[in-house]
Structure formats: structure tokens, C-alpha cells
């Protein structure tokens, strides 16, 4: 089992919501009854069987979300996030499953660390969570981890996220060897000699602000290398947090050539451009950086046609003292679990750039498929993984409302449309607004 954490056997009836599951070709105003944590019946005027009844009139009931890219900061930086607070934040964002990154202290590079995390998650996690393990020991890019043992111990995927595997030779070896694990390699693509000293996208805005540039080529050169290696070794791979048009072009070419390559994009790259960095707000500093309107358009296009099949938040909590510094001194990373749906609904669905169906698919079935997880679905007999949304409600993003232990959100103070009202994860009500 890749996912660990509390499931449940809750009973519930949601009455009269628009029930939308693109994967099941379901779009109707009906009742859904959950018996013992499983979807028992879908239809009109269902008997409540004595269950708790939630009035869903005017609301949207959809498969809950899956986030393949979350930093839980545990072990090592529990002041920034814990398994408990990170998964509570995920539940509040409508997620029923998340994958945690291994760039912790210590790094998740041994079965001992992995087993320890999984044991803690059994008790602490608000929703099921999977833990990824590192590709190289200490993420130092020198020596492969015991990938076979780690996979047997439940590693959800392998990644050195936060940094690239600098050596092409070692990356090739990792791809070859990973054939025994059946898990994805998830790659952070970056050519360090091009991104050293970079604080934002290299372009007109960085030239004007004087900030060191992190060029698109710093990512796309890495993307091209990894895709070439995947093609050469005939192994699948997953590209994390794509940000540049050139990267998307390499991805499309590889997919067309038959490489089994998947990719994710983040809400911040899908919603913002480097123009936002003019404010010098450290909550707009992330790696890879925000890019141009043209790059953003390429990401949205790829999201729409499925070249990019997953939305991942890259939820990266940082303490207040780390971010309350000059832009140039601030670490990379922003939070995103609790705002992802609303941000994307507001910035992509409302202006007509992406349909609601596509958004729901890329936040749920897409990432689940890539990482070999069961697709959350609204179908009789399926475990209840549901999110109840009010797409008519607006709310203001406020620091004190976050369940995350950190508040380094790029959306602080912004008014968003689309609110998560209820999350059911693995049959348990994990969040209620």
C-alpha cells in the first residue's frame, strides 16, 4: 500500500448537489448516499437510512483531489509543518490523498526513516498520505538509494525534489534501475550552472529589478536531458512543476515519440507571471520561478489538451522569520493546499480559460493515474473520496484561517471564488467548513 493514514466508515447522504465526475461520465443533480465509507447509492430522493443528511442544493459534489507534490517538512522542520497540520490543510483544500516530498532532515533515503514516517502518519494524518523517497542518498547526487527496499517499504515514488540529479550518467542509471520498483521517478529539472544566483525568471522584469535571473533554459535544458534519457532507456518518468514553454515543447515532442512522460504544473505558475514579482513580496519567490504570460499560456494549453495531466501545489511551507526578509534573502517556496481549487477556479475557470471538468480531472484522476493510485470516483461501491464545493461563494485569504502551520501564501489578502465545504477522504469526513 502506497497510502497510509486514517480512513473511516462514515455514513452520509448529500442531497440535491450537482454531482460531477468526468471519469464516470456523471453530471446530474442527484442524491449520493455513503454507507460505511463507501458510495452506496446514487439517485433521486434516496432514503437517508438514518444517516446524517447534508443539503447540497446549489452545490457541487466532485471526486476529491490528489496532490502529488507536498512538503510536509517532517522530520526536521516541524515548526513549519507536520504530518498533522499538512494533511489537515490538504483536507481543507478538498484533497483526499497527497504525496510528501523526501527533502526533509534527515532525507527520506532509508527504509528506517520511511517506516517511521508511515507509522506516524497512521495516527496523525487527517487524510491518506504517501511518502516519496530520494533517488540519491542525502539527495547529494552521488549514490543511488536502495530503491528496491524503499519501494517494498512503501515509497510512493522517487524524487530528489528541490534539486536535480546533476550527473546525466547517474540519472540514466536511476531510470534503468527503477524498472524493478514499479514506481515513478519524479524529476526536478534544473541545470545548476545556468540558475546559480537566480532569484526570479530571467527576462525583462529581472533586468529592470536587478534580480539575478533563473532562465527558462535552466529548466528546459534539464527537461530535454531527462526526456532523452527516458527515451534511451525506455523508462517512464514524471516532470515536476513545469514552468516554461520550451519545457512543454520538449514534453510534447517526447510524448509524440512514445516516451511515457507525464508532467505537473502548479497553481501559481498557472495563475501568475513574473510581472507580479515587481512588488518584491517574498511570497512570490519560488523555484522554478514565475515566468512570462507566454509561458503561462503554454502551461494552460498543455493542461487543456492533457500533455500536462496533473496539477500539483508544490506546497512549500516556510516560517515567518524565513520569509520576513528582503526578497533577495528569502528562500524559495509558497504554500498552496488550502487555496488551490479557489485560485484555479477564480483565475482559470471563471475567465473561461479552462473548463470546470478539466480542472477537476487534472486535480484528481490525472495525478492519481500517474502515480498508480486508485482514482477517486463517485461510483457505487467505490470508497468515498468526495469534495463538496460552493462555486458561488467568495472568500478572502487570511493568514489566521490557515490550518497549515505556515502562511507563506501568494494569495494573502486576495478575494477568491470557490469554497471547499466538505471533504470525505477514504470514507471519513476529514474536513467541514
Amino acid at each position, binding site marked *: 500500500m502506497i497510502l497510509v493514514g486514517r480512513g473511516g466508515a462514515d455514513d452520509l447522504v448529500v442531497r440535491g448537489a450537482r454531482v460531477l465526475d468526468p471519469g464516470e461520465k456523471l453530471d446530474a443533480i442527484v442524491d449520493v448516499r455513503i454507507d460505511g465509507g463507501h458510495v452506496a447509492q446514487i439517485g433521486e430522493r434516496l432514503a437517508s437510512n438514518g444517516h446524517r443528511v447534508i443539503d447540497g442544493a446549489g452545490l457541487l459534489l466532485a471526486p476529491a483531489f490528489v496532490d502529488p507534490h507536498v512538503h510536509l517538512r517532517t522530520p526536521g522542520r516541524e515548526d513549519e509543518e507536520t504530518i498533522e497540520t499538512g494533511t489537515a490543510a490538504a483536507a481543507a483544500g478538498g484533497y483526499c490523498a497527497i504525496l510528501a516530498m523526501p527533502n526533509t532532515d534527515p532525507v527520506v533515503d532509508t527504509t528506517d526513516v520511511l517506516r517511521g514516517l508511515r507509522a506516524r502518519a497512521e495516527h496523525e494524518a487527517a487524510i491518506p498520505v504517501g511518502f516519496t523517497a530520494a533517488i540519491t542518498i542525502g539527495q547529494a547526487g552521488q549514490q543511488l538509494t536502495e530503491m528496491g527496499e524503499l519501494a517494498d517499504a512503501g515509497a510512493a515514488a522517487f524524487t530528489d525534489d528541490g534539486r536535480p540529479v546533476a550527473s546525466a550518467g547517474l540519472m540514466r542509471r536511476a531510470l534503468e534501475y527503477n524498472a524493478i520498483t514499479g514506481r515513478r521517478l519524479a524529476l526536478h529539472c534544473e541545470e545548476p550552472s545556468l540558475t*546559480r544566483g537566480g532569484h526570479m525568471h530571467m527576462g525583462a522584469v529581472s533586468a529592470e*529589478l536587478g534580480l539575478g535571473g533563473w532562465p527558462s533554459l535552466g529548466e528546459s535544458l534539464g527537461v530535454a536531458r531527462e526526456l532523452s534519457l527516458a527515451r534511451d532507456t525506455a523508462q517512464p518518468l514524471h516532470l515536476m512543476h513545469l514552468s516554461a514553454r520550451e519545457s512543454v515543447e520538449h514534453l510534447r515532442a517526447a510524448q509524440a515519440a512514445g516516451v511515457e512522460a507525464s508532467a505537473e504544473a502548479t497553481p501559481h505558475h498557472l495563475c501568475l507571471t513574473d510581472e507580479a514579482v515587481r*512588488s518584491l513580496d517574498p511570497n512570490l519567490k519560488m523555484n522554478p520561478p514565475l515566468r512570462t504570460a507566454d509561458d503561462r499560456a503554454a502551461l494552460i494549453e498543455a493542461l487543456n489538451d492533457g500533455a500536462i495531466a496533473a496539477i500539483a501545489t508544490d506546497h512549500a511551507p516556510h516560517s515567518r522569520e524565513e520569509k520576513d*526578509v*528582503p526578497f533577495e534573502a528569502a528562500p524559495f517556496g509558497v504554500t498552496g493546499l488550502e487555496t488551490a481549487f479557489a485560485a484555479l477556479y477564480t483565475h482559470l475557470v471563471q475567465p473561461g480559460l479552462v473548463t470546470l471538468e478539466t480542472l477537476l480531472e487534472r486535480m484528481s484522476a490525472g495525478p492519481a493515474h500517474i502515480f498508480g493510485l486508485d482514482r477517486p470516483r463517485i461510483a457505487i461501491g467505490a470508497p468515498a473520496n468526495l469534495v463538496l464545493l460552493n462555486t458561488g461563494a467568495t472568500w478572502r485569504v487570511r493568514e489566521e484561517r490557515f490550518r497549515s502551520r505556515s502562511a507563506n501564501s501568494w494569495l494573502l489578502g486576495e478575494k477568491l471564488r470557490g469554497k471547499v465545504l466538505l471533504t470525505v477522504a477514504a470514507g471519513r469526513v476529514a474536513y467541514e467548513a
Partner: protein
Amino acid sequence: MTDLHVVPGDLLPPATPERRHLLSIADLTRDDVERLLSTAHSFALSQERENKKLPTLRGRLVVNMFFESSTRTSSSFELAAKRLSADTLSFKASGSSVDKGESLKDTALTISAYDPDVIVIRHPQIGAPQLVSRVTEAHVVNAGDGKHQHPTQALLDLYSIQAALGRLEGVHVAIVGDILHSRVARSLVQALRLVGASVTLVGPPPLVPAELGERAFEIDAIAEADVVYVLRMQRERMEEGANYVPSLREYSARWCVTPERLRPGQKVMHPGPMNRGVEIDPRVADSDAALVVDQVRAGLVVRMAVLYDLLTTGPVLVETAMEVA
């Protein structure tokens, strides 16, 4: 005992002017720039008198926070505040709690507890003045943040050009040298555009970002300009092994501003500190064409104008300045 006769309106505090900072030239309009230059001119007249002190900002507090070395900027801000009768407090990072690991935010909060009217900050990191402006009630003036901005330098440069040439509109300025690492160049390019002057950026390709404006790699390009503005190679801001130029020897052979590369009538400016023999020939630095000392003098009156403009409203009249003197 005399009865106090209180007129209700007398006790109301003066209307708070809209709180403004000077963080970037991008915050200013052409009107703002022209108003500041004309205010600076009024103050220049006051500086010709024997008693150079004006009572204008009596009782106000100007704090200078310098986290990076400075000669001209820190001394001229301090003198500008004193000439306007403000109290000054100079805070230097070394020898302070910064050495004990105090964060910029905490230092700014500590200084703010004295209710300063203006905080002048210089810091090696881009975004430091923005951070201070988020945590203090004082007006914040950016006296240089990393490679980003140095707005009062650009204003004093405009003032010097106007004084030397009698105009700004249509003036052609060639900026020569390490543009990439220069906050002076970034501010100046914006300021020159704002007042209708034109700019050519000249230097080695890796040090002249294409996005900033028209550029030329050959030093001959300075021949077209009315003003040649020379910049220092900012080796302290270059990463180890970055190889922006192969050597300083090759740099000065190709881009040093020498008497032979200038034509008569051209003015030469430099924000200092100069590396004589690297980017500027000593014969040029010491010639009549050089406005370097005028720039320093302009720095005082322009910074007086900036402080005045932040703490009062409306333009200063020459008569007013003379009268209060």
C-alpha cells in the same frame, strides 16, 4: 493663573499627508521629478548664504540605516537633514545588534520605536527597503538596495545634467561599463526616460542587459552622446568564476574612458567611487569635462529636497526658502 482659551479646532492634529516612500524611480511621475529638481534648486540658493541652516524640519527625526559601506550617500543624507534642522540618528550595521544576528525586520521595528519621520536605508539585498516600509510608519527612502535601485542618485544626476547643459529633454547620455550589477544605471535609465532624455548603454555584452534599452558594445558609441556616464566594475557583486570579462586588463583596454575617446564639449559623470585607470582615465577624471564634484554637491540639495518633499506638501517657493532662512 491664566485661563487657557481653547478653540476646538486648534487641538486637532494637522491632516496627515498621504504616506509616501521613495523606493524606486518607478514610483515617480515626470511632475514629481520636476518638482523635486526645482525644490533642490531653491535649496541650492539657500546654500549660498553664510548661514546655511533652514528651520524647515525642526523637531523631525531622520534615521540613516546603512548596512553597506557608503561615503557620499550617507554623509549627504546626514548633512541634508541637518541643514533642514532635523534631528539625525545614524545607524551602522557593524557594531550594532546586527552583529548579534538581529534581523532587518527587528532592527527596523527597534528604530521605529523612536517614531522617526524618515528612515533612509541602504542594504545589499534587493527588497530590503520594501520590507522596512511594510513594518514602519516612517517614510522610507531607498539609498541603494543591491542591484535594484538608487533613486536619489538618479535625481542628483538629473540635477547635475540640467545644471551643466541647461536642459534634460533631448539630452543623449551614454552609460558605460558594468550595467548589469548597477543600481545606479537602473535608476538613471528610468529617470532619463521620464524626463525625455535618450540613453545608450555601452560595455561588454554580458554586462549590458538587452532588456534595459538600446545598447552598443564598441566604445566608439560614446561619441554620439552629450554626457558620458561611467560606471565602476562591481566586482563585489559578481559570483565567483562568472567570467563576465576575461580580465580587467582587457576591459580597460577596450572600454576605459580616455581623453582620446572623448570629443570636445562632452561632459563626463561618475557616481563614485572611481577606479582610476580601470573604467576612467585619471586625465578624464581630473579634467574640466568631469562633473564628479558637481554631482556630490548636487547630492546634498537633492536629498534636502527629497526629505522636504516627503515631510511637507506642495512645491517650495524660492521666496519661502529664503524667508525661513
